[in-house]
């Protein structure tokens, strides 16, 4: 049993290494700043997640594997954020490169919105999640560890501005979302990797496409925007709210409809994962 896990771990580590190396080559090889971002951060994040998780399996260490999975989850949340911010900065600085199609031209940057006092609501679930992460990081379930984590989590909860009520989550919807999404990640990683391996970059056709979302829910819009950004080949460059419109930079542009279809499918899955609250 441990031998099988060890073999799987080694395979994962090798896959992660290949992915990271391809990402590095893509950073050198691709023609424009935004296209380089497609190759770089996302593939390398997934690569690192695979290496860390695989290392845990290979070393037959549940703690290491757990941390590896945690690192992977962490990267899944941070890579789209930094990608989005860098992409937006590059676009605003006029470094987007040659675009075949640009829906974002002339759109004023959205200042964004923050929670009003009425929307602020203390949640117990968020600190609970933080405490669990804290205990996993310490790998120690002592009373002191839990109390320390609890103190920090409550402090964060009371100070942070991110205080909107947590959305309702559907477990089966989330599972369906991530299973389908994992498939999309694999396909797009292979596609970008192929682009890196082949010497000429003649299939790169960059464009920025506006994708209107049907949802009114901020959480769904956020999940979709992040998912789009973590997939190599598409990157959320900007987003306006009310109604939500994503501006997606794509590496292989053929038609705007194709991009909108792909995002609409993700949005459908995300809506089922985070169902709308019944109006109170």
């Amino acid at each position: 049993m441990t031998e099988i896990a060890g073999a799987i771990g080694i395979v994962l580590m090798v896959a992660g290494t290949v992915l990271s190396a391809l990402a590095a080559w893509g950073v050198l090889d691709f023609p424009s700043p935004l296209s380089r971002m497609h190759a770089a951060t996302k593939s390398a994040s997934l690569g690192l997640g695979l290496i860390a998780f695989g290392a845990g399996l290979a070393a037959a260490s549940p703690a290491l594997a757990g941390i590896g999975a945690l690192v992977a989850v962490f990267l899944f949340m941070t890579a789209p954020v930094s990608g989005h911010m860098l992409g937006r900065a590059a676009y605003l600085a006029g470094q987007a490169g040659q675009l075949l199609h640009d829906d974002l031209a002339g759109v004023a940057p959205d200042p964004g919105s923050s929670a009003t006092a009425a929307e602020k609501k203390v949640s117990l679930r968020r600190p609970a999640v933080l405490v669990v992460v804290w205990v996993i990081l310490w790998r120690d379930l002592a009373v002191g560890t839990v109390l320390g984590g609890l103190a920090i989590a409550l402090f964060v909860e009371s100070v942070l501005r991110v205080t909107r009520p947590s959305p309702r989550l559907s477990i089966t919807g989330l599972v369906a979302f991530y299973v389908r999404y994992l498939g999309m990640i694999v396909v797009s990683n292979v596609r970008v990797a192929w682009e890196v391996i082949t010497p000429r970059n003649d299939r790169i056709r960059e464009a920025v496409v506006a994708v209107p979302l049907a949802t009114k829910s901020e959480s769904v819009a956020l999940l979709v925007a992040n998912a789009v950004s973590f997939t190599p080949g598409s990157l959320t460059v900007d987003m306006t709210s009310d109604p939500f419109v994503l501006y997606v930079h794509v590496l292989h542009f053929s038609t705007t409809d194709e991009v909108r279809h792909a995002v609409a499918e993700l949005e459908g899955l995300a809506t089922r994962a985070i169902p709308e609250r019944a109006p109170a």
Partner: protein
Amino acid sequence: MDLVVNVIQLVLGAAALPALIRVGRGPTLVDRIVALDLILLLLAGGIAAEGARRGSELFVPVIVVVTLVAFVGTVVVARFVEWRDT
């Protein structure tokens, strides 16, 4: 196991080279920070592989810190690029 980890670390180290060239070449600040971010992720990958070789969990906080630094650094530079000209 030892051999696999050696190869993995060698490949990851070699992969830092094209990224390093991109850091030097630029031409934009965004290119440089993307490449530097990538180098940090490669470094974290090498450390994780070392953890597998030694079967040790001591490297775990290092991995967490390195990835955190990569993320915070990237976000800060992105903010800087965005506000520099306004």
